[in-house]
């Protein structure tokens, strides 16, 4: 029997030691009328070979970015990951360990998370980061709850240029509270500053994403100034790679930074696991949800690490905890730590520059196709929106026939953008890949098609 090492003889001897006549007797507390007398109706057992064949068959029913040129993004990015990342996260010492409840036997996990927190702090410019959240969306939702608690106010402004998933999850998390979410409209693809100004009185927080869902840089200096003049707190959702070349959230006055860390060395994986991160100021440190690892000394003065400020957490504080989160995304955070360490400051900067310049090159190439234009005039990072002279669904379908996935249909998330595509570049893309998108698009549009 797979994964049960006891032999029949072991079982008999163990039963004798227990003083029970059968295994069934051990289940005597389960009422007879609840006992599942019928076999549960699921397939299996499969031998390992059969399982692998079955899983390969399932995998073969999917199409990955291999063999096509994919410009899909919108929050989940197909990054190039150094092989060492997977080999470190594949070490059983890391992946077969539990949450580090016994610090003395978990220094590896604890130190790696401490390093992760330090990296998040350095990227965001905010000195207090936690051990991770489920994803960028729930990190933003928890940041809203945190801000409402700090400010004791019941209104949160969320820019419509944030990722739609972030807004959806935030709505779910806040849905049963008395907190009102006010969505700020867009202006030229960025947060409408006039609406922001009007909404600020009485608001606990403002959530903006920078770069935003359209890949555009938000006017964060202006936003930071406006929010700073109000009583509200600024929550910035950021792309960690962009922080190598853009201002840190702390520099424009954000008091909480959150974001999605999947792009730091994790596969796209049909959208999960992802990696939420969260950082704040020292002042709000005790309001953070979830695990926090801290440095500490042992009884002999040796440096080590422990889970700290646990009195904020559910296993101690129960219904008064800052959050219900327990298990987070530990191993993904380890992967991100390895990834960032391998790239280093210069490597991350080079990657960010490359994403910036490839996006610029792709945008210019596409804007050079007759009838195609950039939807927004603002500067962008990693991704951008093009407006086509035809329905985006049709274009997408036609391009996929020649092995190109040109991007996301914006109409899935925004009204009035039926002809718009969100095009995302990756460090994987060569100049040829980008040129083939432009030439493919030109060819398809020239056939006439729909208008």
């Amino acid at each position, binding site marked *: 029997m797979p994964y049960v090492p006891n032999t029949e003889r072991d079982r008999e001897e163990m039963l004798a030691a227990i003083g029970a006549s059968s295994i069934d007797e051990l289940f005597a507390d389960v009422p007879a009328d609840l006992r599942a007398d019928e076999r549960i109706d699921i397939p299996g057992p499969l031998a390992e070979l059969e399982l692998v064949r079955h899983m390969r068959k399932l995998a073969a029913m999917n199409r990955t970015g291999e063999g096509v040129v994919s410009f899909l993004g919108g929050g989940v990015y197909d990054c190039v990951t150094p092989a060492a990342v997977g*080999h470190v996260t594949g070490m059983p010492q890391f992946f077969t360990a539990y949450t580090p409840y016994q610090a003395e036997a978990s220094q590896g996990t604890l130190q790696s998370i401490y390093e992760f927190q330090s990296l998040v702090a350095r990227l965001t410019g905010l000195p207090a980061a936690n051990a991770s959240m489920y994803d960028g969306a729930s990190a933003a939702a928890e940041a809203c709850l945190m801000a409402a608690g700090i400010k004791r106010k019941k209104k949160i402004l969320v820019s419509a240029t944030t990722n739609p998933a972030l807004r959806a999850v935030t709505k779910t998390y806040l849905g049963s509270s008395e907190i009102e979410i006010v969505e700020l409209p867009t202006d030229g693809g960025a947060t409408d500053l006039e609406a922001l100004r009007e909404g600020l009185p009485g608001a606990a927080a403002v959530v903006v994403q920078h770069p935003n869902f359209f890949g555009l840089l938000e006017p964060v200096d202006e936003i930071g100034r406006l929010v700073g003049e109000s009583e509200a707190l600024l929550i910035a959702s950021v792309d960690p790679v962009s922080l190598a070349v853009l201002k840190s959230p702390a520099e424009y006055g954000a008091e909480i930074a959150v974001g999605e860390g999947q792009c730091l060395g994790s596969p796209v994986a049909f959208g999960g696991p992802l990696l939420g991160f969260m950082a704040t100021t020292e002042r709000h440190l005790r309001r953070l949800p979830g695990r926090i690892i801290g440095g500490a000394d042992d009884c002999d003065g040796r440096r080590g690490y422990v889970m700290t400020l646990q009195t904020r957490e559910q296993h101690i504080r129960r219904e008064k905890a800052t959050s219900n989160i327990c298990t987070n995304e530990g191993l993904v955070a380890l992967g991100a730590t390895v990834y960032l360490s391998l790239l280093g400051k210069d490597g991350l900067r080079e990657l960010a520059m490359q994403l910036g310049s490839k996006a610029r090159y792709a945008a210019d190439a596409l804007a050079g196709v007759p009838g195609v234009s950039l939807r927004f005039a603002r500067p962008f990072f990693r991704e951008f929106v093009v407006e086509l002279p035809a329905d985006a669904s049709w274009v997408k379908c036609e391009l996929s026939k020649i092995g190109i996935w040109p991007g996301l249909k914006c109409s899935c998330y925004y009204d009035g953008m039926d002809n718009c595509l969100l095009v995302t570049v990756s460090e994987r893309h060569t100049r040829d890949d980008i040129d083939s998108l432009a030439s493919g698009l030109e060819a398809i549009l020239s056939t006439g098609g729909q208008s």
Partner: protein
Amino acid sequence: MVRHFARLAEKNHHVDRAIYPLGSCTMKYNPRVNEDVAALEGLAGVHPEVEGEYAQGAIAMMYHLGRFLAEISGMDAVSLQPPAGASGELVGMLMVRAYHADRGDQRKTVIVPDSAHGTNPASVALAGYCTMEVASGPDGRIDVDELRREVDGDTAAVMITNPNTLGVFETRIQEIIDVVHEAGALAYLDGANLNASLGIARSGDAGFDIMHFNLHKTFSAPHGGGGPGSGPVGVKAHLTKYLPYPLASRDEAKAEGYEYFMDYDRPKSIGKVHAVYGNFLVMAKAYAYILTLGPEGLRRVAENAVLNANYLQALLEPHYELPYKGYCQHEFVLSATRQKEEHGVRALDIAKRLLDYGVHAPTIYFPLIVKEALMIEPTETESRESLDRFAEAMIAIARESEETPELVTGAPTSTPVGRMDEACAARELDVCSWDGDREE
């Protein structure tokens, strides 16, 4: 760089090395074939925004995993979206809210036994409800009379862990659920301890309306030192409409290659709790595990988990106080009160000393209703030899507590660091000041 992390790795206890008997954590072996299949490019490399026709294998896997979990639990529909158990609890509580709201019923409280996991009351609070605790009776089970007194028209739901965190099965579960239902409330099962019931009893048959699963516990996906997990939620038919959107679905009328789809058209849904579809690769591991075991194998998991726990309990009962007697399910709770009162050795000291014996400690000081609690869950993947070794260590420590208590209170001495000063860590906070220097 690899050397740095390899050195860190050496400082971790992990289940591949030796028993990791944390109660209610179900630290079982993580089958390597599951890791391999989840890493297949055709799964790990699928972008969530591909058109459905290019993700038929991925959606089919999710759909069928949902069906398997429904069949295993006796529920009617399952959402795989919650990325952890606590997230599943939140989804469950939000569905409770939606259910009552639809009936124009404003209920305010959720009843949770005093033996519950801390996530339960925290999730209740996050969903905007007040927690009311119900005390356990002298046998460690929910006091049904007490429950009857507490449940009223304000009760939205009762959250129950079964077997509970003391490792005992709630023998009067149907009566409990009847009390809950008669008051118009819903019955929620925290599935953290599902390992004991696989193929033995189905929570849906007992009348539970909602439950969550922990794929990283019961279904062998690794815990990863703190995630990623996966906390699917199952419901009875009358609550299906409230499940998070999108839901992996199947339309058999459609042509092959198009029949599986993510259903967004769910107007009564409580919304999304994950940015995409949940922790897909964790689901892949659980799916592979279930197929490998099949129905008989799952039942053998429960049988051997319970056998292993009872065997350890029998070996340790002469040496430690066992507050709740009788056969246990997948776990049991000892108390170190004898060691504490007579020798000044606390549960914490025993836990630390176990580390010196090369095994991991049980969960300590939980459940809260047992003083000096040591909550032990060996799981079915431990061999008898491994259980014997753990028992020998525990018995040796009981003896040390009498003869040389300073050895126990001074533990651990063989770990990379000695006992950590957690109070000092909280006073003099240092959470992010690593300077990037990795010189050893």
